[in-house]
């Protein structure tokens, strides 16, 4: 990502539709949040593990237009909490996850982890932070995130090896323990990623994530590359790891329904802004924002109930999915309450130009 002055100057946040709908959570920031990093809303009970405030990020498109991907995002995660981050393609959810771990450089805003500011770290300082292994990242597709030429034991313990912790035998022991924690036996230690199945690969990736005893795990679509049975089990595995090891998690997903059993809280990201946030049960039962309502309505799972037929019921949609890069130009303002009903008439996120 290039440039540091690509925040579009005057983006109005006062627009009703684009505003975060606030729930009664300590993490909640309120409308003022998107104006900048200065506000301090840490509420009494617990200091959050991660606090993202007013985060913006974007990139220069090939046509010279500046695209805003994140447009003032506020998010907090408490220790041991699982937060589901929901949004469709191009909503900026992956960018947010990558910004937290420093793979994307934000243009404004702050990211605080365990009380220390971590955005903008570079070079040695960034590496030092990463080597502590307190934040780990799980990629969507384990086939691509695991080196095909490395044995599982080396993959899992790479973080330990990088910071020169333990000798090879000790690391192997730790790898075996991590594998057991994710439900794989020690017989996997010497396999190559190509020799195990998709679900097993994702377990290996998770084992790599937890071997350094992280406090925060960021999972970017951890199950969308897997089949239905594996999805459920990986999500349950994540929930169990949270219970056993008190690891907080940010689970990024386009599938609201899959978060129902796992997340304590969900945040819905739309056009680079969090439009709704609250306890999972509350969001499911009474989605306040029209976009969330739409997401819930278009989930094939919710539509599969007896009688309602199938996902195809939603009518021939329009080509709402214009060029992906147009994310910035689709505006939350399109989302009037009248358009919440899925169907041909709605103009949500209509094609960009």
């Amino acid at each position, binding site marked *: 990502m290039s440039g540091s002055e690509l925040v579009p100057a005057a983006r109005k946040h006062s627009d009703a539709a684009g505003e975060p709908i606030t729930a009664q959570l300590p993490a909640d920031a309120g409308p003022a949040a998107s104006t900048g990093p200065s506000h301090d809303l840490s509420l009494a009970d617990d200091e959050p593990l991660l606090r993202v405030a007013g985060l913006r990020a974007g990139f220069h498109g090939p046509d010279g237009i500046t695209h805003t991907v994140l447009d003032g995002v506020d998010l907090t995660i408490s220790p041991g909490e699982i937060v589901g981050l929901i949004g469709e393609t191009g909503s900026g959810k992956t960018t947010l996850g990558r910004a937290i771990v420093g793979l994307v450089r934000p243009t404004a805003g702050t990211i605080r982890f365990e009380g220390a500011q971590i955005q903008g770290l570079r070079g040695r300082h960034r590496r030092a932070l990463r080597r502590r292994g307190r934040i780990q990242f799980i990629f969507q597709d384990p*086939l691509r995130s695991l080196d095909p030429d490395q044995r599982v034991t080396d993959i899992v313990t790479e973080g330990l090896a990088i910071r020169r912790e333990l000798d090879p035998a000790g690391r192997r022991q730790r790898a075996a323990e991590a594998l057991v924690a994710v439900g794989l036996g020690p017989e996997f230690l010497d396999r190559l990623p190509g020799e195990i199945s998709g679900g*097993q690969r994702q377990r290996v990736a998770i084992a790599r994530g937890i071997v350094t005893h992280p406090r925060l795990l960021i999972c970017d679509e951890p199950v969308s590359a897997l089949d239905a049975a594996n999805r459920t089990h990986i999500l349950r595995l994540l929930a169990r790891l949270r219970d056993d090891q008190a690891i907080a998690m940010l689970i990024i997903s386009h599938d609201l329904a899959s978060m129902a059993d796992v997340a304590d809280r969900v945040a819905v990201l739309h056009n680079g802004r969090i439009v709704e946030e609250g306890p999972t049960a509350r969001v499911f039962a009474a989605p306040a924002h029209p976009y969330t309502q739409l997401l819930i309505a278009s989930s094939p799972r919710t539509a599969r109930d*007896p009688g309602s037929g199938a996902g195809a019921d939603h009518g021939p949609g329009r080509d709402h999915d214009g060029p992906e890069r147009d994310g910035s130009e689709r505006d939350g303002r399109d989302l009037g309450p009248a358009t919440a009903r899925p169907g041909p008439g709605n103009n949500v996120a209509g094609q960009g130009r």
Partner: protein
Amino acid sequence: MRHALRAVFSSLPTRAAGLFIIVILTVAVTGETLAPHDPLAQDLDSALAAPGGSHWLGTDYLGRDTLSRLVAGTRETILSAVAMTALGALLGVLPGIASALLGRWSAFAALRTVDALLTLPTVIFAVAVGGLFSNGPAALVIAIGFLMAPRFFRIVRAEALGFSRTQYVESAALLGASRWWIIRRHVGRKVLPTIAVTTSITLGGAVFTSSSLNFIGLGSQPPAPTWGGMLAVTTSHLWEDPLAPLWPGLIIVLTIWSFHTLADGLREGLDARNPRNARNPRHSRPSPSRTATPSPVTSPALPEQVGTGPGSLLVGLTTTGPDPASPADGPADQAGPSGPATADVPDTGALDSDVLDSDVPDSDVPDTNLPDTDITDADTPGADTADSTGVRNVADIPDDPSFQEGSGAVLLRVTDLWVTAPTHTATGHHGDTATGHRGGVVRAVSFTLGRGEALGLVGESGSGKTLTCRALLGALPEGCAVSGGTIVFDGQDVTALTEKQWRPLRGARIGTVFQDPASYLNPSLTVGRQLTEVLRRHGGLGRQEARQRALELLSAVEIRDPAKVARQIPSRLSGGMQQRVMLAVAVSCEPDLLVADEPTTALDVRTQAEVLALLAALRARLNMSLLFVTHDLDIVAGVCDRIAVFHRGRIVETGPADEIVHRPSHPYTRSLVAAASAGAVPAASPGSAQEVPVVRV
């Protein structure tokens, strides 16, 4: 390692080339000791002697033995070629890898330096260096080696750049890895095959360059024998001895050929392990064994099938009935498959368990809950629709009320299809590897698809649904082969068609949509151009007509501004739009059958719903049959009339879509339904989910 070597030397030319290189290298090392005569000894009496006698290849104008001079010249020529290449690799490889991982500015500086070096003309530079220092072999080696470095640099850099952008390198960076760590641990090793290939090609080039320079009198000076020098001398006596230049010329050509052939072998042998190649399904060609007459009897993968009585009945059927598809005898041959196909399942327990061992911890319906014998359990509980064999199924379908059998109504009939996969091959597909160890990955699959009908093939990854589909398209991945059964498309047996015979079918009569549209669209051509190309080639339309039709098609797939989208290249479009374009391409020739392999898996839910609706609409409008492959039971019900559930290479249940989703009879289907709903709303199928509880991790 041994495996890689075998792969490299799998073809006859590479073996020959390897052998020749070994001989040449041996001669280069031993040098004059092998020569029958002293290569410098002159014998003017036998000058320009013809081959024969003690001078096997004759003599030159000074009576020196040609063979001995060739042998002695080998050392000079080969050693300088090796030295040049080594110097080039030394100077090029590490900087090439490093520059891929460096910051923008240092990479820029390195690239411009290399560009400057590349502009230097080799021979003139060598002459200049020779003139500046000494006109000896060492100066030449240094000059040429220096000029070879940029070549290594650029190739290695490009390759390393590709690997440095992989997610596992990103993962390593997220663990705090330094650049040096990433080179050592991840990138360096991956670049090795490329280095080997480049080295081999460069060696050939170095032999050529050093011979050329010797030919024009640079480097080693006479009387020291070199191949290039010998060529020069013999060409000046061309009138007296026209055959003489043949020997040095031949050995130069053979050496260069060998290095290049070896490079080809290295590229193919080492790159086969490269997942990036295996991943791209466009590379997959039907393997030669596919064209063999499909005969289950000869297949080693089928012992248990041949063993059973009904199985042999089946064998007879497939081998004796070459054309079971002709509409007339449709009902007659259906009685066969439907019986035996169910009956031959029970004795596969052993095969299953060892094929799938590695899958067990992951398919979280553990064996205790779903032993393979369940598949055929006669008393599948709660299966009110089950027929006498206990499974609602199988195959064809006379007993499937949803399928109306009748002449002409059958578009596609798959009978007892077996597909084998190579052992331990990383195919790059999710999960396919896990089940690809031995035996069939598609086992005795039979189904029928009527005209205008939509059939969903559902199953988890690795269950064989995708391979079944690819078999139907004659596009199995490398190494996979149809080992038995027949596929009949519209009355034509397509099981053993050649690639050429497939061509008029694919695209024109069978359209395809895959999970990842981006990898099937040409990234550098506009959408409109790709569409018109298909229309002109398959549909025989003129330029103008095709353009018009392309726009129509784009609006048919509900793209709002077809003219604008037609001018875009695929990467400018979102995943949903790309999939629409793929759909437009697939239906452009109004195929009879559309095969959609996980077409919406990569899309988010809203786009997914829209693409599915579009699919249904197109199918209705064009009266296409649809074969819809997915792992997601949730979406299939709305799109398909019937569903076939795949499990471990077999179809375990077939039936009308609603039936399967809401009242699954097979335990595996029930676990699928349960798993699909477990993540979200309460189970949609009353009375089924609790019978096969999904086990806690």
